């Protein structure tokens, strides 16, 4: 299926309430919140790894306010209210993940904590997706260069990422499609992510490697702070995407699931 056709499909159902509720819009909103939280994690790296910094902005409502500020910058509007169980669940999951990492974040003896956007988003997707709610979200990588096997794309994600990779950069802003699985309608959304300058400190070339900071060139290493070999990506290369799978019937039945 051509990328343009996938985008067309998205247009076909985003406008109307094909399911009584605008699930494609909701999916996109959830992805945008997910990505904003990931961005905050990136901005807060110095604070996270510091031994002395005030870290109160990394927890609870303060952390949500930080996400709100990034969301406003990215989308020109306030962070969405938690007016749907999916959004409520996502906000709870974000706060829970930060709490799960409290010991690590507060540990004054670790110079490098390793709480980076990749590990944060993996934990967040696990927490969110394993919560018994019929919505799954995850970061998916490219099959030929996976750091974490759990980020392996499924058939649909692989097809979309392949099309996006083959298209002109910037063409694949968002892909949404309704698919059928075991007789159930799924709203699938994939938002591609491209490498920015910040990402290259771990995913770029040896010149970008942040582990080489303050080290003379003859002692430079190919291994990044995470312990992986620098994969030589360039600015604007496709990194993967954030994928969301929403089971329409499951969400509609959500009220019976004894949630919250």
């Amino acid at each position, binding site marked *: 299926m051509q990328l343009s056709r996938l985008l067309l499909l998205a247009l076909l159902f985003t406008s109307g309430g094909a399911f009584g509720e605008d699930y494609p819009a909701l999916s996109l909103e959830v992805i945008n919140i997910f990505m904003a939280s990931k961005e905050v994690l990136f901005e807060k790296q110095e604070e996270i790894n510091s031994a002395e910094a005030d870290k109160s902005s990394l927890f609870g409502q303060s952390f949500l306010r930080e996400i709100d500020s990034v969301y406003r910058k990215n989308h020109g509007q306030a962070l969405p209210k938690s007016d749907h169980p999916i959004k409520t669940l996502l906000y709870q999951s974000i706060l829970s993940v930060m709490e799960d990492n409290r010991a690590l974040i507060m*540990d004054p003896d670790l110079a490098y904590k390793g709480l980076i956007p990749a590990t944060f988003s993996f934990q967040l997707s696990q927490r969110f997706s394993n919560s018994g709610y019929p919505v799954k979200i995850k970061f998916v990588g490219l099959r030929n260069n996976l750091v974490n096997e759990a980020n392996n794309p499924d058939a649909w994600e692989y097809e979309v990422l392949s099309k996006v990779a083959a298209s002109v950069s910037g063409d694949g802003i968002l892909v949404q499609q309704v698919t059928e699985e075991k007789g159930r309608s799924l709203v699938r959304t994939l938002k591609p992510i491209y490498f920015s300058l910040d990402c290259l400190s771990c995913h770029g070339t040896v010149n970008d490697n942040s582990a080489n900071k303050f080290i003379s060139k003859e002692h430079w290493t190919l291994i990044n702070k995470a312990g992986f070999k620098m994969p030589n990506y360039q600015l604007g290369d496709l990194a993967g995407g954030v994928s969301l799978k929403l089971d329409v019937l499951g969400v509609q039945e959500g009220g019976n699931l*004894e949630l919250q």
Partner: protein
Amino acid sequence: MNFNKPSLKFRHSAAYLLSYCCLILFSLQVFGAVGDTGRSTITIGTYGYQPHIKVSAGPLQGRGINYLRKLLESAGYKPVFQVVPRKRLAQYLANGKVDMAFPIYEKELRESKRMSVRPLLFETPGLCFRKENFIPFLSVIERWKKLDIIYAGGTEIIPFLAKNNTSLKPVFGTNIQDRLIKMLASERADAAYVANVFPMYNVNSRFYRSIACSNFYGHSSAVYIAMSDQLDLSVIRSLRQSYKKLPHYAEFELETFK
């Protein structure tokens, strides 16, 4: 009325039968309701599950206890906590020896009912290190595949670890957590595998100053509050209603940190 007509006889009998059934159903409902309202306590089976359930000489403590107490009291019941050996808790629940149980894992649920499809919390296994040897990313297998790793004997090892490290050594005895940490501190081992990182590595843990732990993300287990299937349906419903109104445990945990 001519009762000799067979059709009328049938109607008459049917009306009697219907009235009788209604009376029985009504009585059942009344007595059932009396039974429910008459119940004032709910027995919760549990065991020492740090830091959520702390078993010591006095009454049970911990935020798991506070949460369960709040849940039951808001539903109009008085909680009675019963400490049960860990391996028997699921059996106690299945036999109706306790009305509720916490913590219960997915595989232990059997016929019992979850308070919600949503797990109360997750357990994540991991490796604990001396701080100077901390490995932040366990997905970098090369960093730990040759390390000497100890673990409490009887603990289930995740296949990912077992497959990639051949120097796993079980440790037995009492105060096993302390032994593991002492062995780490004295450099008799490079790392300690734990089935759940959180009790070992949290800001209130007595080990917090000496060790740091990394998680095997993607290998978490869901932990539930479960109810006995022998519990009256109306009690189950009222407990679930109260559970829905409570802040989720994650938020409740946050509250306790404030």
